[in-house]
């Protein structure tokens, strides 16, 4: 079995997540070849075949051009799986490649089992095992789902000829808007989930955050309901965080949320439902009614 792994550069730097692709292929027991649109000056610690196109010519992202470059590598390598990260890059490029090759795609893979790929569904409450039935398939893997592996060594580089492609015209980059809170820097985050019940109850969670010297976070449904501002959102569509202490209040644990906080050093979940998926990543679980327990905890902390 052979995989063509589509790594990523961002703002001129090779992303560490590229090594997660190598880890994924290792877990599948597959041979690897790597594809990058990057620069000679910064090659990965990898000893296999590398198909390289130059960012200076191909741009950091020119979708039509990058698609053609990937297809060229696919033609030379004839892989069983073409694997992307489920980042904005893979999000946009993977389905283009799948459609061009007329093959199946499986998005946001979080595990492998019995020859199938595990993906989340229904807001992470359930998982599906999906098998592609086409000879080749395109996969995207969830960031953080597979451990990164650095094989070391120097890659055997094949330079890809640049073909030209018209279509989307790159105009420029803009920095993200300044965020009101930078959760990435917080040592303690206390997040409110749907389980808080209503907007007024958010202040109870905010009070606990304050008592613990931390910041308030939130899950997607809470932000969607406008109980908490979007800059507090933790998860793949919000911020990815790894504080010393993460307290999840009334958060059931959608995969997208778990992906955004599971690297926290210590996770405390406070939830009515002892079987909620958040228990999967929590170090400690308190089964309680939030509105009874959280004020009691806050009061005891303030003593």
């Amino acid at each position: 079995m052979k995989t063509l792994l589509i790594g990523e550069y961002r703002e001129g730097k090779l992303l560490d997540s590229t090594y997660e692709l190598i880890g994924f292929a290792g877990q599948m027991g597959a041979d690897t070849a790597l594809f990058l649109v990057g620069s000679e000056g910064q090659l990965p610690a990898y000893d296999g075949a590398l198909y390289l196109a130059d960012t200076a010519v191909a741009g950091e992202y020119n979708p039509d051009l990058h698609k053609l470059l990937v297809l060229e590598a696919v033609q030379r390598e004839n892989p069983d799986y073409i694997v992307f990260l489920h980042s904005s890059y893979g999000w946009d490029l993977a389905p283009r490649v799948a459609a061009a090759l007329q093959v199946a795609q499986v998005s946001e893979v979080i595990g492998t089992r019995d020859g199938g790929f595990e993906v989340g569904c229904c807001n992470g409450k359930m998982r599906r095992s999906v098998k592609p039935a086409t000879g080749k398939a395109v996969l995207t893997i969830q960031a953080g789902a597979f451990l990164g592996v650095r094989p070391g060594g120097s890659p055997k580089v094949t330079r890809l000829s640049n073909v030209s492609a018209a279509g989307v015209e790159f105009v420029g980059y803009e920095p993200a808007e300044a965020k009101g809170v930078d959760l990435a820097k917080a040592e303690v985050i206390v997040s409110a989930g749907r389980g808080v019940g209503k907007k007024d109850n958010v202040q109870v969670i905010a009070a606990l955050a304050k008592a613990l010297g931390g910041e308030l976070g939130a899950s997607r449904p809470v932000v969607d309901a406008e109980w908490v501002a979007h800059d507090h959102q933790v998860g793949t569509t919000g911020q990815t965080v790894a504080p010393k202490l993460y307290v999840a209040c009334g958060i059931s644990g959608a995969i997208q949320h778990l992906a955004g906080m599971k690297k926290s050093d210590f996770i405390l979940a406070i939830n009515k439902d002892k079987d909620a998926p958040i228990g999967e990543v929590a170090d400690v679980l308190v089964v309680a009614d939030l509105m009874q327990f959280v004020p009691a905890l806050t009061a005891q902390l303030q003593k």
Partner: protein
Amino acid sequence: MLIVVCIKQVPDTTRVQIDPVTNTLIRDGIPFIVNPYDTHALEAALQLKDRFGFRVAAISMGPPNAEATLRKALSLGVDKAVLLSDRVFGGADTLATSNVLTRAIELLNLQEEVGLVLCGKQTIDGDTAQVGPGIATRLGYTQLTLVDRIEQVDSLRKRIRVRRKLEGRHEIVEAPFPAMITVVRELNQPRYPTVPMRLDSVDAEVAVWSNEMLKLDVASIGLKGSPTWVSKIFSPQREKGEIVGDGLNDPLATANLLIDKLLSKDLLAI
């Protein structure tokens, strides 16, 4: 110029529960909603209609009861609604779904030139984010994903400039019509239907197109046309975290136990 919005009826996944005995989804009584991301695509189309006078068509593939989703779109101001419904479309994965939507857009384009196709960035039930791009490739349209702002529309030159939401930054890109755009929530605030429009929508026509109309090869649609197989759906298996105290019956004692625990892990700044 016509703008086509693809919308999907999905179960409200925030209310989906798992049967603790059978470990399967309890589907009874789960309300259906319009996929939340699609409501932002719809709003974007309606804003373009307000500004440039484009016409808007909403299309949806689904069972007959997905008509409710399209009626909601009509109540918000779309000019045309088409339900793509046929038993042979059932069991479709993203590829087979893309084939059906693509053909429907081709047919709409015969009636009125399509300039833009708008989709939500993903659905909340499948989460694959493949259908929009699948349509774009099949139609040969320019693909613009993860759009959080429409910067400029030049209806004469038929070009659009959008901002895409990436990790920690945005990308501004420009592309010619026809283009397929997938949108994120930050793009806009969806409107609510007015009472008169809601009343009007009750009698408005939702066209139903079956495969008799689309004439697609049955090998390319529904279950047969789907190259991914879901072998099973299951509940995540996990090692549970340690449960501390009895928070339901004795919150105070549990709070104290928990504080001891956090202190022992050096997690409280004292």
